[in-house]
């Protein structure tokens, strides 16, 4: 009899536990639904959230690009022979240069630069073809406007590359090759495409902004409007509130990652060499890191302004400075390099670059992944420890 009773009460307890879990789930889903409504009804913020990645990709991709297209080049062709004409037409054919029709003498080069616009001049000496075929060595002179050293450097490199290309074209195998320029090989980015560097950077930036700032603000807003008091005085488990708040931003971030990837492949003609699945998995990890950071900030603050300031100053600025996307980490003092290790975006930046452009697999990314996991766990544990069941 007593055994039966015990069995019965045991069964009841199990059922109660199950219904408790079911209730938790129901509350959780209702909460997530509410959060989605918040996000969707706030049209202006939504526009910013979806528009921001698109704008950033387009701005970085076109306006701020340090890539060179259709630069004006003047060629002082003193030879005017077969080889020089071939070389000129080759330069003209490349999308980087537009050979000007202007005919100027050597003495007119400097005034031409001073007029602006002109960035580079190539001087082909007389008897260019003759020298090349007889002695196997010929020279050209490149004069670039180095007031903008980066552009000048790029242009010189481009022309050199084209000249070298021409050289190997006219070389006949078996015969002593024509003069060979020093080899400059640029790994993964032969044309110095700047998009390769900024797309992973923009991804880190956008995710950081959406996840950290928005999550922090949305939780603090409940504190400000007094709804948090009601939520605390309810059977709802407080940590469920936090997780439910984060879910919509996880979804939003996936949409943003997808948008950025589609734009960079279609509009910016970026290669995608690695595994899409791996990239999404790593992105999700980084998103969770950011969400944890956002929750952490929301626990520490009580007003939306403070939450926003901390997110911007404490998260966004270090992301810009230390992720290696604007300023190369290798050139930084050791202390700053050390600091950069605790910036999640620094690791994510490397991960995205390695997957997208180098096409590497997980085996070569475990170190970066581990770093992200450690940072996430760290903030997760602190958040749980500091989470208050009461108001103060």
């Amino acid at each position, binding site marked *: 009899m007593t055994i039966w009773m015990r069995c019965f009460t045991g069964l009841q307890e199990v059922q109660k536990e199950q219904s408790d879990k079911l209730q938790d789930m*129901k509350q959780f889903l209702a909460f997530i639904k509410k959060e989605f409504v918040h996000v969707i*009804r706030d049209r202006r913020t939504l526009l910013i959230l979806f528009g921001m990645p698109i704008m950033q990709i387009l701005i970085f991709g076109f306006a701020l690009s340090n890539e060179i297209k259709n630069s004006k080049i003047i060629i002082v062709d003193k030879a005017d022979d077969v080889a020089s004409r071939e070389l000129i037409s080759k330069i003209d054919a490349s999308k980087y240069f537009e050979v000007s029709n202007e005919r100027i003498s050597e003495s007119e080069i400097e005034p031409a630069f001073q007029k602006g616009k002109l960035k580079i001049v190539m001087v082909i000496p007389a008897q260019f073809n003759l020298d090349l075929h007889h002695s196997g060595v010929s020279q050209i002179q490149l004069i670039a406007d180095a007031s903008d050293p980066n552009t000048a450097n790029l242009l010189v490199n481009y022309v050199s590359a084209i000249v070298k290309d021409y050289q190997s074209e006219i070389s006949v195998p078996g015969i002593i090759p024509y003069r060979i320029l020093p080899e400059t090989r640029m790994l993964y980015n032969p044309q110095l495409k700047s998009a390769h560097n900024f797309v992973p950077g923009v991804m880190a930036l956008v995710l950081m902004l959406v996840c950290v700032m928005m999550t922090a603000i949305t939780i603090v807003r409940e504190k400000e*409007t007094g709804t948090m008091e*009601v939520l605390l*005085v309810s059977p709802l488990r407080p940590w469920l509130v936090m997780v439910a708040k984060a879910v919509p931003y996880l979804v939003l971030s996936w949409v943003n990652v997808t948008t950025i990837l589609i734009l960079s492949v279609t509009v910016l003609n970026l290669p995608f060499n690695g595994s899409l699945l791996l990239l999404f998995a790593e992105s999700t990890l980084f998103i969770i890191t950011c969400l944890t950071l956002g929750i952490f900030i929301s626990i520490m603050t009580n007003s939306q302004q403070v939450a926003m300031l901390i997110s911007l100053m404490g998260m966004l600025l270090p992301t810009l400075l230390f992720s290696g996307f604007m300023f190369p980490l290798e050139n930084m003092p050791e202390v700053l390099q050390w600091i950069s290790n605790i910036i999640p975006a620094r690791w994510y930046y490397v991960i995205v670059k390695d997957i997208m452009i180098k096409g590497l697999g997980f085996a070569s990314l475990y170190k970066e992944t581990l770093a992200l996991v450690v940072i996430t766990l760290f903030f997760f544990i602190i958040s749980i420890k500091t989470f208050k069941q009461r108001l103060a």
Partner: protein
Amino acid sequence: MESIVVNGISKWYGKEKLVALKNVSFTVNHGEIFGIIGPDGAGKTSLFRILTTLLLADEGSATVEGKDVVKQYKQIRNEIGYMPGRFSLYQDLTVKENLTFFATIFNTTIKENYHLIKDIYVQLEPFNDRRAGKLSGGMKQKLALCCALIHKPTVLFLDEPTTGVDPVSRKEFWEMLGKLKEQGITILVSTPYMDEASKCDRIALIQNGSILATDTPNAIRQSFDLMLYKAKSHNTALLLKDIRHYSKNLYAYAFGEHVHITFKAGEIDIEELKMNLIERKHHDIILEPDDATIEDCFIQMLRA
């Protein structure tokens, strides 16, 4: 029979130890409307937060439905309803969405406890699809009350529910509380409006964190042991000045459009005062005895 027992609660804030509550004690019986009456900054909200398990008291103890507010806070949270003073719902959610959301997180449905909120909700139903932010102040408070009631709480905590609400809505609101009381719900309500005190079964007057008196509104009014006259003339502002000037044995203050004069019986000859006022060129003078209101009691207690 006690629903809420507060025993010597003290609370102070910050390094300067600003006192919010000083040795506060009272009990609230089952099924009564208990009013905490006091001006802004008297410590009402701190008291509510302590009782709703949101704040920890620095001294003293309290129980709600026999459960300790510190140790058994989880059980308390399951059975009370709370409407904070600045509670503004979710502005971007519609009336229905707000209510459904609060019903769900309290493990119930609108249908299940519809009878509880019916009287209030019928007024809101036409605006079901309107966003809470677009409702009038009175409607908002009604919706907030619905949200606090939807899970059939045994004790309802309402922190200044009528602040910022028009007089008509305030009246309706108190009628609703009367109906809820009939359902056996204990209601602890705070208000800065003295005229609402008479709607409560019992009240506690609170000022600067201390309880001045706890009793039924009538008993508190009857405990008023001074003479009280109300006065009016063509120039009430000047009247107040002149009455104050007349004698140091009386205490006069503006009360609505009248001046209230209180004094110990026998210390002032009211006819002499009237003559004095006429000499001072007041006309249309009204000077007659009046019954003390809660506010008069409160003012007297503050002076004592």
